[in-house]
C-alpha cells in the first residue's frame, strides 16, 4: 500500500451498474488525471430490460451533462409520475411522485377526518401527479411555488440496454478504457489486505489503486473467495428471488401511454410493467419456491405473451454485505446488496452510492475513518430502503402462497413504529438517512387504504363543511389543470421521440 492520490481505478463488470460507475467516476474525477479501466467480464447476470426510476435520476443526468431529450430519444424513454398498484389484497391506487397539490399544513389530517365522516375521496385525488397520470397527461414541474404545476415531479422509464450503450459512449469519450476478459484471481498485499492486481485468465495482470466491484451476484472481488466480506441474507423478509424480463413491442403507436409504472401483485410475487415509447417491458419478480420454472410458460401464456417473446432472467439474493467498502475495493449495486428493485431499483441505489463515493473519494491509503463513514452512511440508507421494500411485501401480499411467506417474519422495529404511528394518527415517524420522503411514505400508506383511526385535534378547528369546500376547491383546481395539460404521448413526440 503506497500513498498519494489515486491514479488508476479498475471497475469489474460490464453491466449497466459497471458503466454507471465508469460514467459517474469519470465525470466526477474528470480533472484528476485518473485512469479508469472497465473489465467487461463474462457470466454477469443480464440487466433488467428497463428502468423505472425516481426523480433523483434527472439531476444526476444533469450533473453528468447529459442532454435529456437526446438520452430519452435514444432509450425510448417515457416519463413517470407515479406507480400504479393493483392486487387481490389491495384496491388499486397510484403512488404519486409529486407533492400534495395544496399548501395547507397537515392536510392529510383533514382528509382522515372527512374520511371518518364518510367522504370516500381517495388520497391520490389531491395529487396533480396522480390525476394527470390517470388521464395520460403530462407536464413538467414549474419552479414557481405558487403554481399548482410546482407540485409535480417526475422520474423516467427507459430501456436499460440503450442506456448502457449511451453510458459507454460517454465513458469512452471521457477516456475510460475497457476490455473483455475474465478475472481468474487476485493478488493481495499481505500486510494491508489491499488488492494489488487482478489476475486475468490469460495470466496477465491488471493493477490498480482502487477497485470497484460491479459484478452483481458474482461479487468477484468483495465476495468469496477474494475479499470474503460476509453476506447477510434478508431472504425471509424479502422472499422474491428471481426477476424475469419480457419485452412486448407496441403493435401500433399507442395513443395513450400512461406516465406510470404498473405493478400487480401475484400469488407468486409481482408483475410489473414499465412503459417505453416502442414497447412495454414486463417484469416478473417472484419467489422460485412458489412459482416453479416449469410453470412459467403457462403463466406467460395466460398473460398472452407470444412463445417467442424475448426474455431474460436473473436470480436476486435479498440481503447485503457487512461492509460495502473493504481495503481498496468498493462494491456497488447487487454486489453490495439487494432488495429486489421493486420500488427503488438497483441502478438507483448504485447511483446514490457512487455519488457518495465521490464525496468520500480516498487517496491510495484509503483512510479507515473515511471508509468507515462511507460504509456507515451507505448501510444506514440501505436499511431504510429495505424497510420501504418490506412494507411493500408485507402490506400488499397477504392471502396467497407468496403472501404467507411475506407474513412469516416480524417486520423491523423501525417499520413497526412507523406503521403503528401512521395507523393511529396518520403521522410519519421520520428516520435519519431515509431517501423516501415522509410525503412518499404517507401517500403509500394512504394508497393502501390504511386509514388512521384518529386525526389531529387541531383539525377540529374548522367545520366539516368548510373542509369539504376547501377540498372541493383543490380538486377543482387539479381537474382544471389536468384538462389543460398535454397528453404524455404528445409531450414525448415533441420532446424526445424514440429513435
Amino acid at each position: 500500500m503506497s500513498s498519494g492520490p489515486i491514479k488508476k481505478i479498475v471497475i469489474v463488470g460490464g453491466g449497466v451498474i459497471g458503466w454507471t460507475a465508469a460514467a459517474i467516476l469519470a465525470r466526477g474525477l474528470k480533472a484528476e488525471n485518473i485512469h479508469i479501466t472497465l473489465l467487461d467480464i463474462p457470466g454477469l447476470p443480464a440487466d433488467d430490460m428497463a428502468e423505472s426510476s425516481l426523480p433523483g435520476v434527472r439531476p444526476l443526468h444533469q450533473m453528468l451533462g447529459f442532454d435529456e431529450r437526446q438520452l430519452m430519444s435514444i432509450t425510448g424513454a417515457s416519463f413517470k409520475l407515479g406507480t400504479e398498484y393493483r392486487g387481490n389484497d389491495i384496491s388499486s391506487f397510484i403512488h404519486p411522485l409529486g407533492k400534495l397539490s395544496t399548501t395547507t399544513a397537515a392536510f392529510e389530517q383533514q382528509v382522515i377526518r372527512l374520511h371518518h365522516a364518510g367522504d370516500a375521496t381517495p388520497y391520490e385525488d389531491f395529487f396533480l401527479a396522480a390525476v394527470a397520470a390517470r388521464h395520460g397527461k403530462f407536464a413538467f414541474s414549474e419552479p414557481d411555488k405558487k403554481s399548482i404545476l410546482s407540485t409535480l415531479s417526475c422520474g423516467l422509464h427507459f430501456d436499460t440496454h440503450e442506456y448502457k450503450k449511451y453510458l459507454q459512449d460517454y465513458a469512452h469519450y471521457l477516456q475510460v478504457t475497457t476490455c473483455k476478459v475474465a478475472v481468474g484471481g487476485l493478488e493481495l498485499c499481505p500486510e494491508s489486505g489491499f488488492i494489488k492486481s487482478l489476475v486475468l485468465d490469460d495470466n496477465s495482470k491488471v493493477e490498480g489503486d482502487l477497485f470497484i466491484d460491479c459484478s452483481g451476484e458474482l461479487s468477484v472481488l468483495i465476495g468469496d473467495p477474494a475479499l470474503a466480506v460476509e453476506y447477510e441474507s434478508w431472504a425471509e423478509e424479502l422472499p422474491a428471488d428471481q426477476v424475469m424480463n419480457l419485452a412486448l413491442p407496441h403493435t401500433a403507436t399507442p395513443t395513450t401511454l400512461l406516465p406510470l409504472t404498473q405493478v400487480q401483485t401475484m400469488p407468486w410475487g409481482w408483475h410489473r410493467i414499465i412503459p417505453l415509447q416502442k414497447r412495454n417491458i414486463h417484469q416478473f419478480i417472484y419467489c422460485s419456491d412458489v412459482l416453479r420454472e416449469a410453470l412459467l410458460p403457462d403463466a406467460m401464456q395466460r398473460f398472452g405473451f407470444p412463445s417467442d417473446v424475448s426474455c431474460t432472467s436473473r436470480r436476486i439474493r435479498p440481503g447485503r454485505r457487512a461492509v460495502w467498502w473493504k481495503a481498496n475495493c468498493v462494491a456497488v449495486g447487487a454486489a453490495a446488496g439487494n432488495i429486489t428493485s421493486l420500488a427503488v431499483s438497483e441502478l438507483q441505489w448504485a447511483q446514490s452510492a457512487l455519488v457518495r463515493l465521490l464525496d468520500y473519494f480516498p487517496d491510495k491509503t484509503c483512510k479507515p475513518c473515511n471508509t468507515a463513514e462511507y460504509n456507515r452512511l451507505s448501510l444506514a440508507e440501505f436499511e431504510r430502503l429495505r424497510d420501504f421494500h418490506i412494507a411493500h411485501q408485507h402490506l400488499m401480499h397477504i392471502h396467497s402462497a407468496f403472501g404467507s411467506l411475506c407474513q412469516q417474519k416480524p417486520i423491523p422495529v423501525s417499520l413497526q413504529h412507523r406503521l403503528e404511528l401512521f395507523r393511529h394518527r396518520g403521522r410519519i415517524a421520520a428516520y435519519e438517512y431515509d431517501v423516501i420522503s415522509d410525503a412518499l411514505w404517507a401517500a403509500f400508506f394512504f394508497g393502501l387504504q390504511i386509514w388512521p383511526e384518529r386525526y389531529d385535534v387541531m383539525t377540529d378547528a374548522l367545520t366539516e363543511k368548510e373542509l369539504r369546500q376547501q377540498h372541493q376547491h383543490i380538486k377543482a383546481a387539479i381537474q382544471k389543470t389536468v384538462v389543460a395539460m398535454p397528453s404524455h404521448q404528445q409531450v414525448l413526440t415533441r420532446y424526445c421521440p424514440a429513435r
Partner: protein
Amino acid sequence: MPGQRIQQVVIVGGGTAGWMTAAALARFLPSALCNITLVESEQIGTVGVGEATIPHIRHFNQLLGIDENEFIRATQATYKLGIQFAGWGSPGTSYIHPFGLYGHDISGIDFHHYWLRLRALGDDSPLENYSIAAVAALAEKFSYPDANPASPRSDFGYAFHLDASLYAQYLRGYAVQKGVVRIEGKVEQVQLSSATGFIESLVLETGERLNGELFIDCSGFRGLLIEGALNTGYEDWRHWLPCDRAVAMPCERTREPLPYTRAIAQKVGWQWRIPLQHRTGNGQVYCSEYLSDDEALHQLRSQIEGAATGEPNFLRFVTGRRKQSWNKNCVAIGLASGFLEPLESTSIYLIQVGILKLLECFPDADFVAVNQSEFNRHIDLEYRRVRDFLILHYKANARDGEAFWDACRAMAVPEELERKIHLFRESAHIEHYQQGLFMLPSWLAVYIGQGIIPGGYDSRITRHTREAIAAYLQTIRQGIRTDVDAMPSHSSAIQAAVNAMQARYPEASMSLYGLQQ
C-alpha cells in the same frame, strides 16, 4: 373513530416554557373543545434573565401569527446573526458561529475544502470572511436576508436577543386573550390515580383542586410533576458538561447593541453577554468543583461593562435529560425536560421543538402509547444532538494549563462525537444529517474556530491551481464585503423595526440558516 378528545390541559409553571406552551396550544387546539389552565406563582422566580435565541424562534412566532416588529418592541429585542466565542481556541482568539453558510459549494464539493486547500498553500484569510452573517455581525450591520435564493445575500438567517420575561409576558397576553385561564398559586400536592399512576389533579396551597387529563410540566429544573410526582428519572451528563452553576446579572447598556451574542471563556467556565435594547444581560456559567459562588460573582462583576442594574441571581443545575420527557399523562417541556447550558442559545429552541412535537403527537384522553414513544424518540434525538455539539466546545478547547480546561480536553466524549471529530480531523468531512440541530456550517465554525484543522481535504480539488482557488475565494470575500458595506447599521435596523408599521420581514422556516425548505 376518534377517541374522546382531551378537554382539560393543565400547565404548571409560567416561565418562558409555560407561556410559549400555553400560547401555542391556545392557538392550535380548538378552544370549544379544550380548556387550558396555567398555574403559576409569583413567589417562584423564573430563570428568564435575557435570552439569546436561534432563528427557529421566528418560525414559532410566525406560526402564532405574531408580528415580528411588534414582538421586537414588546421584548426589547435586538437582532442576532450568530455567536462570538472568545478565548475558547488558542489564547487571544475568537470566532463567530454565524447563522449562515460559508462560501458556496463548487462542483458538489463543500466550500471548506477549497478554503483548507488554500490555507495549506499559505493563505491566511480567516474562514469568517466567507460568511456574510459573520462579516455583517462584526461590522455591527444588519439587514434581512434576500428572498431570492440565488442571491448570495440569501443564505443566512437571523434570530433575536430578547428579554425572556417580557416575552413570557407578551405570550401570556396572547394566551389569555385566546382563552387560557391563568391561576395564581403554588402547587402543594399532586394526586395520582392508584390504578394507572396517571396524574389526576393538583391541589394548590389555597386548597383549590385542579383536575386535568394532560399535565404539562413547565416548572423548570425541579420538574414538579415529571420528577416530583412521577419519579421519571434523570440521565446525568455532567461528566461531559461539567458546569453546574451560573450567576446572572444585568447591567446598563454602554454602547450600541451588538448583533451577536458573546460567549467568553474564563479560567473556569464562560460568560455570556446578551445585548438588548435597554440593557445587557450578563452571566457566568461555572463548575462548583473549580470555582466558588463568590469567585464566580467576582469574575462576573470584574468584567461586565456597565453598572449592574440588578442583584446577582444564582442558579444551580444538573446538566442532563429526563429519562422520558413524556411519562404517563405528563409532558415535560423546557428545563423540566432537561438542562443544557445556554452556550449555543438552544433553550428556547428546545422548548419550541417540545411544543411542536407535542402538537404532532397530541393524544386523546385514552393516551395511546405510540404518541408517547414517538415524542420521546424525537425529543431524545434533539437533546443528544445539542449535547454533542456543546461537548465539542469543551473538548476542543485550547486553554493549556488551566485545570478545568485541561480536564475537559482529557475527557472521553460520546462515541458518535468522537467519530465526527476523528472524521473531520482526518479527512475534513462533516456529515450532512437531516434530523435535529446542527448542520455543516455550525460544526465547521467550531472545529476551525477552536483549532481543529484537518490533515487533508477533498482530494479532488488538488487539480485547481492556487491562483484559481485564490481568485475564486477573493471574489466571494469581496462580494460579501460589498454587500455588508451596503447594509444599514444594526442599531438603525432595530430602530426601523421598532418604528415600522408594516411587516416586510422575510418568511421564516424551521432552519438555522434561514434556508427555505
